[in-house]
C-alpha cells in the first residue's frame, strides 16, 4: 500500500466538498474491492474519503410505492431489513447471498453499484427493478447508469446518496457461483411489475449487466418457469474464462432464469 491521506466527513455534502478539492481521491464505501487493490499496489489514491460516518447516507425507508436505501447501507442491513423483506423479498434474498458475512457487514449497496463489478449481484437487481440511482447532483435510471465493465455514468465528484427501488409484485434472484471466488458466474434477477417483466443478467456479459428481451417476452405471456422451456440465451457477447466459456455461461443464464422465476413465484 502506498501512503495516502484519510478523511472521514460527517455528511455527504462534506464528502462531496473533499472530493472536489483532493486530486486522485477515492471514495471508501466499504472497501472490499478498493482496499485489497491498494494493498497489492494496483491502486494508489492520494486520499481516501471514508463515507462511514455520513449518517445521511444510511438507512432504509419506504416512500409510497418505493423502497429507498441509503448508499452506505450494508448488504447485511438490506438482507435483514423488515421493510425490504416485506416489500421486495427477492432483493433481501439477493443481499443475504452476497459474498460472505465479512463482506455483507462491511460492503455497501452504494459501493457495489458505483464499482459495477461485472460479477456483482446488485446491478442485476437495479436493472430488473428499474431502480433510480440518486446522486448528490442528479437522478439516473439503472439503464443509463451501468455503462460497461467497472464503468458507470457517474461523473467526477459525483457521489451516490441513495437508491430507490419501485415495489414490484414479484421478483427474485438466482445465481450460479464461481466455484473459486463464489462471485456470480451467472446471476439472473427477474421482476414482474404490473404487466411489465424485466430479466437482468449479471456475471455473464462482456460489457456488464444486461437485459434478456426474449425471456422477458416469454414471461410477459405467463410468469412461470415453464415459459422459459426451450429458450436459450445466445452465447454472443457472453464472457468466457477458465471457469466457464460463453456456451456454458449462456446455458446457465437459462437455468438461473428459471430458478429465479420459480423462487419469485414460490414454486
Amino acid at each position, binding site marked *: 500500500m502506498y501512503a495516502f491521506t484519510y478523511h472521514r466527513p460527517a455528511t455527504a455534502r462534506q464528502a462531496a466538498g473533499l472530493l472536489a478539492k483532493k486530486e486522485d481521491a477515492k471514495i471508501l464505501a466499504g472497501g472490499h474491492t478498493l482496499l485489497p487493490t491498494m494493498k*497489492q499496489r494496483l491502486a494508489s489514491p492520494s486520499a481516501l474519503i471514508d463515507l462511514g460516518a455520513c449518517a445521511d447516507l444510511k438507512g432504509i425507508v419506504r416512500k409510497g410505492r418505493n423502497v429507498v436505501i441509503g448508499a452506505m447501507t450494508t448488504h447485511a442491513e438490506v438482507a435483514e431489513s423488515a421493510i425490504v423483506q416485506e416489500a421486495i423479498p427477492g432483493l433481501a434474498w439477493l443481499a443475504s447471498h452476497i459474498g460472505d458475512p465479512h463482506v455483507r457487514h462491511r460492503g455497501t449497496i452504494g459501493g457495489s453499484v458505483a464499482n459495477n463489478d461485472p460479477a456483482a449481484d446488485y446491478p442485476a437487481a437495479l436493472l430488473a427493478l428499474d431502480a433510480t440511482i440518486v446522486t448528490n447532483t442528479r437522478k439516473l435510471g439503472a439503464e443509463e447508469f451501468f455503462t460497461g465493465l467497472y464503468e458507470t455514468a457517474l461523473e467526477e465528484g459525483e457521489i451516490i446518496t441513495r437508491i430507490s427501488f419501485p415495489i414490484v409484485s414479484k421478483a427474485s434472484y438466482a445465481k450460479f457461483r464461481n*466455484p*473459486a471466488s463464489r462471485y456470480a458466474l451467472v446471476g439472473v434477477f427477474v421482476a414482474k411489475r404490473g404487466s411489465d417483466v424485466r430479466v437482468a443478467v449479471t456475471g455473464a456479459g462482456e460489457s456488464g449487466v444486461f437485459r434478456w428481451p426474449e425471456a422477458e417476452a416469454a414471461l410477459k405471456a405467463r410468469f412461470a418457469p415453464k415459459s422459459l422451456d426451450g429458450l436459450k440465451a445466445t452465447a454472443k457477447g457472453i464472457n468466457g474464462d*477458465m471457469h466457464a466459456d460463453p456456451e456454458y455461461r449462456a446455458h446457465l443464464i437459462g437455468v438461473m432464469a428459471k430458478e429465479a422465476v420459480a423462487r419469485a413465484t414460490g414454486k
Partner: protein
Amino acid sequence: MSATGIGAAVRRKEDHRFITGQGRYTDDINRPGQAHAYFLRSPHAHATLDKIDTKAAAAMPGVLGIFTGDDLTADKVGGLICGWMIHNKDGSPMRAGPHPALAQGKVRYVGDHVCVIVAETLAQARDAAEAIVVDYGVLPAVVDTASAAGAKTVVHAEAPDNTVFNWHLGNKDATEKAFKAAKHVTKLDIVNNRLVPNPMEPRAAVGDYDDGEGAFTLYTTSQNPHVARLVLSAFIGIAPENKLRVVAPDVGGGFGSKIFIYAEETVCVWAAKKVRRPVKWTSDRTEAFLSDAHGRDHVTHAELATDADGKITALRVHTTANLGAYLSTFSSSVPTYLYAPLLSGQYDIPAVYAEVDAVYTNTAPVDAYRGAGRPEATFVVERLVEVAARELGKDPAKFRMQNYIKKFPHQTPVIMMYDTGNYAASMKKALEIIDYKGIGKRKRDSARNGKLRGIGFSSYIEACGIAPSAAVGSLGAGVGLWESAEVRVNPVGTVEVLTGSHSHGQGHETTFAQLVSGRLGIPIENVSIIHGDTDKVQMGMGTYGSRSGAVGMSAIFKALDKVIAKGKKVAAYVLEADEADIDFADGHFKVKGTDRTLDFGSCALQAYVAHKFNGQDLEPGLKEGAFYDPTNFTFPAGVHICELEIDPETGITRIERWAAVDDFGIVINPMIVEGQVHGGIAQGVGQALLEGARYNADGQLVTASFMDYCMPRADDLPSFDVGMTVTPCPSNPLGIKGCGEAGAIASPPAVINAITDALGHEDIAMPATPQAVWRAAQKSIKRMAAE
C-alpha cells in the same frame, strides 16, 4: 487402556494455545533491530537477466542492502540442492541444472528470485524494489508437461532436451510377455493435475546473526529444522552446524511444502550478517502461489492386462512428470521411488513395469505434496482397475476382491515387501457402510429427479513411515530416514521428550505424550513434548510421509525402554532388591512377590538425589536417548467409496455419501486419526473436483489467487462415515502404520470413478469442475438418447 494412554481420544493439548490465539508462529517472532526483506521476482517465465540496475533503489529511504546472485557467489554461498539422486535407464546420473538462491544470468519461472532488498520497513523495501531497473531478454517459455521434452526452448543447458531423467522400474520383459498373452487390455490416458499446497500459514523466515558468538539463528516455517540446518550448513555453506541454530516454532500446516529448503530462508539468514541486522521475510499469498513448491503434474499412459478369468496379469505405465524450473529438495524422488513402487496397489500382479520421464519447464518447482507420488500411483491403479471391471462386465468390488493380495508377506515386482493387511475386510466393511445393496434403487431415484448418480471405489495402499536408511540409501536418498528421541525425566518425575519429529498440525504434543503417559503411568499433564529447535533436540529427520508415529514414536518407545531399565536399577538400590526382581507396571517399580514398591516420581527423585548408590556402579540421573531406524516401510491401506449425484443441467456434482475404511495398524488417538482422514479426503476431493494450477502459454500462473484457484470448502463435502480395520504393523514396536496422507491418496480416484459411473463414460479429467461435468453430461445424454 489408561484414560490418556494409547487408544484414548485425548483432546489435543496444543489446541488451547491455538484456538485462543496464543500460537507462536515464525511471523510472530520479532528480533530487536529487525529489518525486512522483499524479493524482487521475475514477471517473466523465461528471460536472460541482462542488467540489474540497483543504483537509484540503493539510495532510497531505509534501504540497508540490495543483493543479487553475484553477492551470494562472492560469499561462496552455494545453490539449493536436490537430495535424491536418480539414475537414468542407462545408469548415468540425472541431468540437473544449478539452482541458485538468487538468479544468475537467467530467470526460469514467474516468481523466480531476481534480487533481495533489505530495508528498515517492508514498505520501504517494496518502494525500493519498484526503483530497480531490470533488463530482461525475454525468451519463449516451455510450460506444457507432455511436450516439454525436446521442445525448442531449453530451460537448463545441462539438460538439453529438458529431460532430467528417463527412469524405469519393474520387469520389462515379463510385463511385455504378459501383455502379449492377455485376454483383455484396458488402456487409459491420465492427467494428474498440478496443485498448489496452500497451507494456512504462509512461509516465513527470520535470520539473525550474533557477531559476539559468530553464530546464526534462523527461525523458519519448516517441517524438518534439522534437515534445513544440515543443508544450509553442509551444502549451502552458511555456517558450520555448531554456529547455525534453526528454529521451527508453531507451523500452520505444510502438506509437504515446508519440507524443502527454499531461497528465501537461505537469503534471510545470510543477509542478517551482511546488514548486521535480523532480517525477516513473510510470504504473501501471491508469493505463496508463485513460489511454494507445487504438487503432482503427471501425464500418464497406463495399461492393465487381464486373463480369461479376470485375473490381473500385468500393469505398465509411461509417465511424464513435470519438475518445474529447478529441482526442489526431494523433487526427484516423488515421481520415481515414491510413485512406481506403489503401482501394484493392493493387487497380486505378477508383472509391473513403469517408465518415468522427468522434465524441466518454466514453472514453479514441483515437489512432495500430501501423499507425494502415492496419490499419483493410486489414481493410475484405481482408475485402471475400475475401468477394467466395467469393460469386463464385472462388479468393481468383486473384481477388486478377486485380485487382492491375500497372503502376507507379499513381495511385489516393484521393490515393496508388503508385511501385513486384510484388504477384503476393509472392502466388506466399506460396502456395508455405504449400503452397496441399495445403490440400484438410489440410482433410479436420482434418475427420476433428472439426476445422474454414481458410485466409485478406491482400494489404496501407501508406503509410509519412511524409511529404512539402508533401503532409501540404496535408492539414491542423500540421508537415512531414522528418527531420534530423548526422554528427560526431571527429579519430580515430570518428563520432557525431545523429538526430531516436527508437528505442523498433527497433534504430536498430545499423541507423543499419550505414549509416555501410558508407558510410565504418569499423568499426561506431566509430559511435555519439545521439538523444532536444533539447539534443544540434537538431531532429527522431521515430519513427512506419515512417519512421525511409526518412526518418531518408535524412537521414543526405545528411549522409554532405556528409562525404565535405568529406573529398575535405581529402584533395586532403593528397595534393596536384586535388579532382576524389579517389575515395572502402572507407574510403580515393585519387588516381585512383595508389597515393596517405588512410584515413578520417587524413583526419579532418588536417581537425582543419588544417596542410595555410588556413582561408580550406577550413574546418577534419569535421561535416555535413542535412534530408531525402521526395518521396513509401513503399508497403510483401505477402501474408500464415494457416492455422488450430478445435476446434468448445471454440472454440479454433490457428494452424497462417503465410506472410508482404513487400516492404520494400531491407533494412538482415534479422534486425531479421524481428523487426519477428514482433512485428507477434503484435500483429495479438492484435487478431483476443484483445484488445478494453470499456466498460460507464456508461463504466467493464471490461478495465482483464491479468486481463481478453488480450495475445497465445508459445503463442498459430505459428512464422512469413517470405519477402521486393524492389522498391527509388525515392523515397529507400536504396530503403527501412519494415517496422515491416506485420505488424500484414496479420494481422487473414488470421486472420478463415481463421476464416470454416473456419466456412463470415461471422458473426464481432474478437476471435474461444473463446466467440465456439464459438458461430459451432455455427451452422456446424447448417448442415452442414441441408445
